[in-house]
């Protein structure tokens, strides 16, 4: 069975790849393109470790097929910093010790960025419910929520 040839845009770059119809965007990102920042925690959309933005919308990469990507744009954790300059969320996560093992961190950062892009002044409850699809087993979420709220304040200039 011949593979499908797909042309798409990932992190602003034009990208081409081959994949089987049943390969997910997560499979493609990691196995074909070696963008390993998006992690595989469950492959069933329950953990959020593979969170990416698809046309600016927060989704699980494990629930999108690679073949669906023609004409769309994907943004991954690898695009969050600009050169040497970290996104405020990334800096605040380090400052607040909002990560321990760090495997859920890329997914949570992408999700948090999507939140702040939509709602620059979320309450603690709004942050928690927005991030409910990002499982963390190490931190108990406390410092993650504090880091997101602090980054939001920073980005609002307050």
């Amino acid at each position, binding site marked *: *069975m011949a593979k*499908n040839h797909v042309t798409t845009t990932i992190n602003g770059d034009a990208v081409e790849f081959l994949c*089987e*119809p*049943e390969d*997910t965007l997560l499979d493609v990102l990691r196995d074909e393109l070696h963008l390993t920042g998006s992690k595989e925690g469950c*492959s*069933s*959309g*329950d953990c*959020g470790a593979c*969170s990416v933005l*698809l046309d600016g*919308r*927060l*989704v*699980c990469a*494990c*629930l*999108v*097929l690679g*073949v*669906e990507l023609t004409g769309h744009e994907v943004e991954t954790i690898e695009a969050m910093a600009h050169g040497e300059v970290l996104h405020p969320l990334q800096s605040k996560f380090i400052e607040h010790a909002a990560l321990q093992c760090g495997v859920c961190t890329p997914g949570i950062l992408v*999700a948090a960025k*999507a*939140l702040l892009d939509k709602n620059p002044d979320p309450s603690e409850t709004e942050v928690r*419910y*927005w*991030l*409910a*699809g*990002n499982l963390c087993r190490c931190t108990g979420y406390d410092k993650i929520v504090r880091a997101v709220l602090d980054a939001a304040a920073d980005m609002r200039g307050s």
Partner: protein
Amino acid sequence: MNDMRYEAPDTVDGAVALLAGASGEARLLAGGTDLLVQLRAEMIAPALVVDLKRIPELQSIAAEDGGFRVGAAVSGAELGEHPGVKALWPGVVEATELIGSTQIQGRASLGGNLCNASPAADSVPAMIAAGAIARVAGSGGTREVAVEEIATGPGQTSLAKDEIVVSILLPARPPGSSDAYLRFIPRTEMDIAVVGAGVSLTLDAGGVCSAARVSLGAVAARALLVPEAAEALIGSKLDAAALARLDAAASAACRPIDDKRGTKEYRIQVAGVLARRAALIAAERAGRN
């Protein structure tokens, strides 16, 4: 290797033709939040996957006759951002927004949630309570089907092999109306509903309930429309006695199972509690309309 073929037609007729012409099993792809999980778990192995997202009618939300026609593949996130639909049918929107996580919301659709036919699907009781109508297209033409007639059992629908739900009409409603959906899950998010209750009602100028529809999810092989529960409310001001009758009628309608998410007794008891609570929220919203 799975010899699966992927097609992305850009018209309804094109999609129908693909389904009609398929020799092996064909599956429809909207948000993929159920389909990809089933594929990965090897629960299904279709020969053909038809992606519906390039078809304009399935991706649009349009005002129609005082209501809204929602494309079957519109994502929950997009639905939740539509001020018109949110104002008219807040219960349907909140039900849809309970499906999974924010990430799931970015993809999951009303059409997918309905046609996956899980007995616990969150949007379905709200759509049934709303009296939503599905527009179905197939080789034989187009027909309108009440949403409660689509699912026939777990994972089973009344659709023919070559039929697609193209859109769902959330109808107009008289003033003094609103709806609400509540579900019970053990955590605060991320669980499949153990019980779901959707209530839509109309209050007249005196605050008396003149019309109601009550639907329960996760308590039977498919979501139930419960006329007896609606009867309990109609003609009342949602006083304690009416709510108690509603509670009892909702519990009585349940035909649940014991499974890893809840026991029979638990579902029966909580169905009544949620029906009551959803009715009160709907009434509070209706009073503001």
